């Protein structure tokens, strides 16, 4: 009996064997997560296209395996470049989940590390540290944030190079066990890859995260607010759009992160406003609504500039509180 099945599988399938790509797609449930990605991540067109392509490649690879068209597993080490707050970490998290659903990695875990976790402080400290991190990330995705800090050309005796060496070795030898994602700002990552050609050639996918447009940022703001049960009035939306347009031209603009900070401060002002006219009855809807004035009180509007810590005027509202 076993002999029979053996010979059966040995028969080469004819070239016109039908392939049920649809069924495969449904069974992996990858469409669900891709749609989720579309819904919950605003903008980022090139990123989404790339993820779709990767998902498609892995699906087709699975089908090819079924048809016994063996090919080496594709390397999926990636680099995410983009300005601050463009969603690199968020996408990395999703990536781990997608790769897990497509059975490319065994666990859907994402281990996020920075230079501190990889590089040691004295001779002989780096290798065990890096190896430890790699061991923990195995079976999942290792996300190295601000990876360019690993390499410090100005210091020849920096231990970062040792860490890179070990990473390269693992990326090559344990391709089945680990996917490495390097992330960082575009220009610095370019220098990093330029001075580490080994790293560049082992990272097959370079994905660049574009900046958001003000409209996209507004959509993100609405998503964020909905998540924490707030809503913006129409005027507030207009104000926020105006705010992001102005804020973008200023220093230290960090895309979605700046928006989140602005919203946090708007909540602060909203609370203060409610507190100030506590004599009036406050309803549930008042607790949920952010008005335009909460946003317009920002220093971005008042003075057209930020103070040093990028704090856009959280204290403006408290001017009337006594100063000590």
């Amino acid at each position, binding site marked *: 009996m076993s002999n029979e099945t053996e010979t059966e599988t040995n028969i080469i399938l004819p070239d016109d064997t039908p392939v049920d790509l649809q069924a495969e797609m449904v069974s992996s449930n990858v469409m669900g997560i891709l749609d989720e990605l579309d819904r919950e991540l605003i903008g980022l067109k090139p990123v989404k296209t790339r993820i779709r392509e990767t998902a498609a490649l892995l699906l087709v690879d699975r089908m090819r395996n079924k048809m016994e068209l063996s090919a080496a597993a594709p390397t999926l080490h990636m680099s995410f470049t983009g300005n601050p707050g463009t969603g690199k970490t968020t996408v990395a998290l999703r990536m781990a989940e997608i790769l897990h659903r497509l059975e490319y990695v*065994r*666990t859907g*875990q994402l281990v996020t590390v920075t230079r501190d976790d990889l590089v040691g402080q004295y001779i002989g400290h780096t290798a*065990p540290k890096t*190896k430890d991190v*790699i*061991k*923990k*990330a*195995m*079976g*999942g995705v290792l996300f190295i944030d601000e990876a360019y800090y690993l390499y410090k050309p100005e210091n020849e005796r920096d231990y970062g190079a040792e860490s890179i060496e070990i990473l390269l070795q693992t990326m090559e030898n*344990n391709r089945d*066990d*680990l996917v490495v994602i390097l992330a960082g700002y575009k220009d610095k990552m370019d220098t990093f890859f330029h001075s580490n050609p080994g790293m560049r050639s082992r990272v097959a996918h370079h994905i660049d995260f574009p900046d958001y447009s003000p409209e996209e940022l507004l959509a993100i703001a609405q998503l964020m607010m909905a998540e924490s049960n707030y809503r913006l009035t129409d005027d507030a939306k207009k104000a926020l759009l105006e705010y992001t347009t102005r804020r973008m031209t200023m220093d230290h603009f960090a895309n979605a992160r700046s928006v989140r900070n602005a919203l946090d401060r708007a909540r602060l002002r909203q609370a203060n406003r409610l507190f100030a006219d506590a004599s009036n009855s406050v309803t549930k809807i008042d607790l949920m609504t952010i008005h335009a004035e909460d946003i317009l009180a920002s220093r971005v509007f008042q003075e057209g500039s930020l103070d040093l810590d990028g704090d856009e005027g959280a204290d403006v509202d408290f001017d009337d509180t006594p100063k000590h």
Partner: protein
Amino acid sequence: MMTNYRNQVTQGQFSFLPDLTDEEITLQIKYALDQGYAINIEYTDDPHPRNTYWEMFGFPMFDMKDPAGVMVEVQACRKTFSNCYIRVMASDATRGTESQKMSFIVNRPAVEPGFRLLREEREGRCMGYTIVPYACDMPEGERGQ
């Protein structure tokens, strides 16, 4: 011996079975990780059954998710101490247990010479018996070379 037909040291789990393959070891480690056990690797060149405390190879591994990470350590230990006994142990930190749950040998020396039986004449024609591993005839560090 009838029960130990391969004349090898039998300690821990699976030691009467043929040596585990790497795939089987991976599966055992996966089971341990799924139970939430912490895994550590130990080695020794003294197979005496009363030698319970072996040398640790690296630190215990607490927050591993995947057996591949542990296998890397197993391979590293095999490379460094190829002619020693190496075992993988899994400890359960659950309150009330807080103890070792698994232990199995993953590497053996090429030759396992076995044990010598020592007899000791005691008072009143009593006999004392003990065993000494032949492997321990050499000083530590020079054994199994």
